[in-house]
């Protein structure tokens, strides 16, 4: 309860910090915040160019000749939200160390700022993706209304894991170095670039042990195939997300006292 009240009284600071991030991004560069969208889109373009010859023919159930690019964008939208929130939560306490030592304010505001600014980024990317879809002649359906559900699960998972590791990172800085490497492996263990049906059946269970698989497949169902996410594949990510978030909160309350000591 106290935490919620603290968040409420710091609402202006949280919003102002998110604004500051975007302002400073536009401050001295012409394209400013556009780079945040151009980056993932460029990645999509690269994969599409390199891999379309290999993969395009194998994408079932969709007639559009740009099917693979559309598929890539759907997965990238989900993955980039996860990767940004996860990656920044990991460093959120270390990066703001001086602030935490010198100012008394609710620490919980920091991950909220990360979440808020990542959400705005992702919204911009989503709008850009819709524009590109339009150009490629692909019309998304009303199943888009499922997206908030997927976004919530993605955020909970990314925040839970990111903060739990971010708290440990305060004490063991190696975590901050190892995790970004593991994140790259994780990307390739998630069906963003490839289609899960291409994986041999015996590895399929292994693929589904990755909570991001179900989430990303949900994005693809909505944006590529125009159908709702497969709720069965979402149960597992939701459980993992809830567990991770509870763990992070538990660790936060336990480590709260010692964190400022070692920053």
């Amino acid at each position, binding site marked *: 309860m106290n935490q919620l009240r603290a968040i409420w009284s710091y*609402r*202006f600071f949280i919003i*102002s910090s998110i604004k500051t991030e975007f302002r400073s991004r536009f401050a001295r560069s012409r394209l400013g915040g556009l780079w945040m969208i151009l980056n993932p889109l460029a990645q999509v373009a690269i994969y599409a160019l390199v891999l379309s010859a290999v993969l395009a023919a194998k994408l079932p159930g969709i007639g559009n000749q740009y099917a693979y690019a559309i598929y890539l964008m759907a997965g990238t939208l989900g993955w980039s939200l996860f990767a940004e929130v996860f990656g920044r939560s990991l460093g959120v306490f270390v990066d703001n160390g001086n602030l935490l030592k*010198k100012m*008394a*304010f609710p620490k919980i505001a920091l991950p909220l700022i990360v979440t808020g600014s990542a959400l705005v980024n992702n919204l911009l990317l989503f709008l850009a993706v819709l524009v590109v879809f339009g150009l490629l002649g692909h019309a998304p359906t009303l199943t888009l209304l499922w997206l908030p559900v997927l976004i919530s699960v993605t955020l909970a998972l990314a925040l839970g894991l990111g903060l739990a590791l971010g708290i440990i990172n305060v004490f063991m800085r190696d975590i901050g170095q190892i995790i970004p490497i593991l994140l790259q492996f994780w990307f390739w263990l998630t069906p963003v670039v490839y289609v899960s049906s291409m994986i041999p059946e015996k590895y399929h269970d292994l693929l589904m042990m990755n909570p991001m698989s179900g989430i990303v497949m949900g994005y693809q169902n909505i944006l590529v195939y125009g159908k709702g996410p497969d709720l069965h594949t979402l149960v597992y990510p939701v459980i993992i997300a809830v567990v991770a978030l509870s763990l992070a909160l538990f660790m936060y309350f*336990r480590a709260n*006292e010692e964190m*400022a*000591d070692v920053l």
Partner: protein
Amino acid sequence: MNQHSILEVQNIGKAYRNYGRELWRVLSWFGLRFKPLHETWTLQNISFNIAPGEAIGVVGQNGAGKSTLLKIITGTLKPSTGSIIVRGKIAAILELGMGFHPDLTGRQNAYHSSGLMGYTSKQIDSVINEIEAFSEIGEYFDQPVRLYSSGMQVRVAFGVATAFRPDILIIDEALSVGDAYFQHKSFDRIRQFRDAGTSLLFVSHDKGSILGLCNRVILLEKGHVLKDGDPEETMDYYNALIAEKENSTIRQEELTDGKVQTISGTGEAIVEEIGLYNVAGEKVEVVGVGDSVELRIRIKIHQDIPSLVLGYGIKDRLGQVMYGTNTWHTKQIIESPKAGENYEFTIVFPANFGVGSYSVVIALTDSDTHLSLNYEWRDLALVFNVINIDKIYFTGCVWNEPQIRLVQK
């Protein structure tokens, strides 16, 4: 317990725990009992109360625990033992310009940084003009902060930090920056706060600002409160503490007028006698403004020492030094004095002081500071009063009589 205090610090202690491997620390959160390899206590058994409007200076050598104490009271660090009761709003200036962003303008930063202190945009709207006026940086207020000089940044930062009057203001040496004009201005604002009822907690190495601002001083040493009391007395003790070496002693004696005299040193050379004399050669305790006086100091050498330098200073009622020098600067060093020798110094000077009570501090050392070898350091070695007998009435602590010309035009 004490209903009148605005802040109660009860038996605070702070330990930094070392677990050897950080993994044990992480596991200890999950209930696995790992004992820390060792604990370092930076603060122990700290207790004090602050009344509304009280201004407390915190002094101590580096590593004494001053900043840790302030951080615990501010709330950024949690105490390992004890508790703190706060009855009011705390504002802390531990570092000026926290949360400032170089790409934002001064105005935007003022909003952002006030937000960090927990204020809403409406509340900031009501003080933004005042912040702008206080910082006195004109057009720059709407320019990005990266174009500011460090002085300009400090001005805005201090204006923001003190835009709202808190019940307790905590300042950690933040004011030693900025130009002289701005320092005066910021001290004025702190004084206004104090007079309006804000309690101050002020860490500084600058004796002058402590004596000028505080009515109580807490001396920390190795994480303990060594002294808590009258500013002049505590600062004298602190000064002696800085000079403390092996074989050195510090003692404080209460004088007949209730003041406490601090004497410290290793004792190879000792002040035997000290007196103030007028031009007629009579020993006096009261002198007139502008009178020529002589300070006579007799010193006995108890052990052979490499060199002897006599330093003296004349302090006002608050302990601020009016004038001080030593025989190292006047090139009158006594080289290798022998045990048993006696020396007498006669210091002639005009008593160009304002009306009031003054004291003399004496230091016997080997060079220009009392930090290398300190034979004897004697605060309040002598007390005398200055009265105005035949001069034009004036206020202040320096007699600096003017000639005022008046022409009607």
